[in-house]
């Protein structure tokens, strides 16, 4: 069933799988077949993941094999003390991107696939401790994961113990250095790099931070190989959260490279007249609907078009909404999510949100647009994390995609479609909330 190259691969049909059902469906995790922890551990798995070309599914799209290789090498060449040499694995299940639901679904329906991935990655890099990051308010999901971990401990599945790490619900808390800072007992705020996590992270040790979907893919590659992984789509399969004006919003597992239009059709097609698509979440970009339809759902193609794949997000914006108002709302939310550590972000993002609010709800004039564009240049790449860069890219794409609305707003003020409470999700946020 799963050895065939079809889908679904990650999300099993039906309810969540117990450990026994999981092993029955996928076979046992090939632990212990990779060699000892003396430097040859997981050599095969890392090469296989490299060959598969698996990229991180958390949003950055960094090649997973390269990351595994870097951590394994750092752990091997670390100091003579045994404790220095051992690496740490941090699985990122936080999903702080509001428009994404795939990690939550994956953890709910296939927890053992993720936990297999953690165990295999731990063996490959020589880790002796693992953490699974979850938002602190995950509640029931946290309890079920704790039960799954306990089940595996009783069965003696895992080479390294897995500990659940509650993470505060904020956008930047799940950034990799922020997660590590939290694990180290500090605040969930990004830290300055270097040193990068693969060099020195949790407890001062080389640390692998990986999204839970990426780890699930690793668990399957370990069983079925790189060729099997690549046999679907242009770069394997992936989970995409489709939402907005579609008939059946939800998480879809697709072959990477499938056209956007086909994915929208699978989600039941638009529920209202569509005008644009947000691809990649709040660090992604807006695309005019007609232009987006033929684009492949893959990071390189979407980036080339001015958006991104991000953590696999597509939001369909209907004609009845105003793209500028939605953008202002999201910019306001992202500004409130600043960790407050870096001046350009702490100052620049609220200024950007203010000018966008003015453009959307006030009179959009040339000076406002110029100031907005200046701000984009002022904030990008000047923070410790990518919040300012991602916000700048998102706003930049909006100014291009909604240029017609900008013109209309400059001529006759806010359009009738402007809603005081836009539709894009921003949990717990209200207009003008401070950072």
């Amino acid at each position, binding site marked *: 069933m799963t050895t065939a190259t079809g889908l679904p691969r990650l999300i099993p049909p039906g309810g969540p799988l117990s450990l026994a059902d999981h092993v029955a469906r996928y076979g046992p995790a090939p632990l212990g077949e990779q060699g000892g922890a003396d430097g040859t551990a997981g050599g095969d798995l890392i090469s296989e993941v490299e060959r598969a070309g698996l990229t991180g599914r958390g949003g950055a799209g960094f090649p997973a094999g390269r990351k595994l290789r870097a951590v394994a090498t750092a752990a091997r060449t670390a100091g003579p003390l045994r404790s220095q040499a051992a690496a740490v694995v941090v699985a990122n299940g936080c999903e702080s991107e509001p428009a994404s639901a795939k990690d939550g679904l994956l953890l709910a329906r296939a927890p053992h696939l993720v936990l297999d991935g953690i165990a295999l990655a731990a063996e490959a890099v020589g880790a002796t401790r693992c953490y699974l990051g979850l938002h602190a308010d995950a509640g029931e999901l946290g309890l079920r994961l704790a039960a799954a971990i306990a089940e595996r401990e009783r069965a003696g599945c895992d080479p390294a113990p897995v500990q659940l790490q509650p993470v505060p619900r904020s956008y930047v808390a799940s950034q990799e250095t922020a997660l590590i800072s939290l694990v180290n007992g500090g605040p969930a705020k990004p830290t300055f790099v270097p040193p990068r996590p693969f060099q020195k992270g949790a407890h001062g040790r080389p640390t692998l931070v990986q999204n839970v979907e990426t780890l699930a893919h690793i668990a399957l590659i370990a069983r079925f190989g790189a060729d099997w992984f690549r046999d679907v789509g242009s770069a394997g399969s992936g989970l995409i959260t489709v939402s907005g004006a579609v008939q059946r919003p939800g998480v879809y597992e697709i072959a990477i490279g499938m056209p956007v239009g086909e994915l929208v059709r699978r989600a039941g097609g638009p529920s209202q007249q569509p005008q644009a698509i947000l691809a990649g979440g709040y660090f992604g970009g807006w695309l005019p609907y007609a232009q987006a339809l033929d684009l492949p759902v893959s990071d390189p193609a979407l980036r080339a078009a001015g958006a991104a794949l991000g953590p696999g997000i597509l939001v369909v914006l209907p004609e009845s909404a105003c793209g500028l108002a939605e953008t202002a709302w999201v910019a306001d939310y992202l500004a409130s999510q600043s960790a407050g550590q870096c*001046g350009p972000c702490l*100052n620049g993002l609220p200024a950007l949100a203010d000018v966008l609010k003015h453009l959307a709800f006030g009179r959009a004039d040339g000076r406002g647009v110029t100031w907005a564009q200046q701000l984009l240049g002022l904030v990008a790449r000047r923070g410790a994390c990518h919040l300012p860069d991602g916000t700048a890219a998102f706003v930049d794409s909006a100014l291009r995609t909604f240029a017609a609305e900008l013109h209309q707003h400059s001529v006759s003020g806010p359009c009738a479609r402007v809603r005081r409470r836009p539709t894009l999700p921003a949990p717990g946020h209200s207009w003008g909330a401070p950072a």
Partner: protein
Amino acid sequence: MSHAARTDGARGPRPARTAAGDRRMPGPAPRGAAARGGAASGRALRVNPIACEAHGMCIELLPELIRADPWGYPIVAPGSVPDDLLPLARRAVAACPTLALLLDPEK
């Protein structure tokens, strides 16, 4: 203490009133080694944005390569530091009150 000094007022600190006077992006954009036509030193300047508290010393001491954004934080010219500015760059790095300015070997 660093966060306190930075968050007085509604959003961020009062921008430093630097020797350059106008705090809104004074002067032309800083030009890197290539644009200045000098020999490159193989070292590059970088700011640790978390440690930076917009004291503005680097902007005063190395206006050739560093200018202020509207809030007093430094914008560093990209690229290698020219050889003739390297001693000044070292002085600026040593002068930073929070050691946020760094001089790295260029990658």
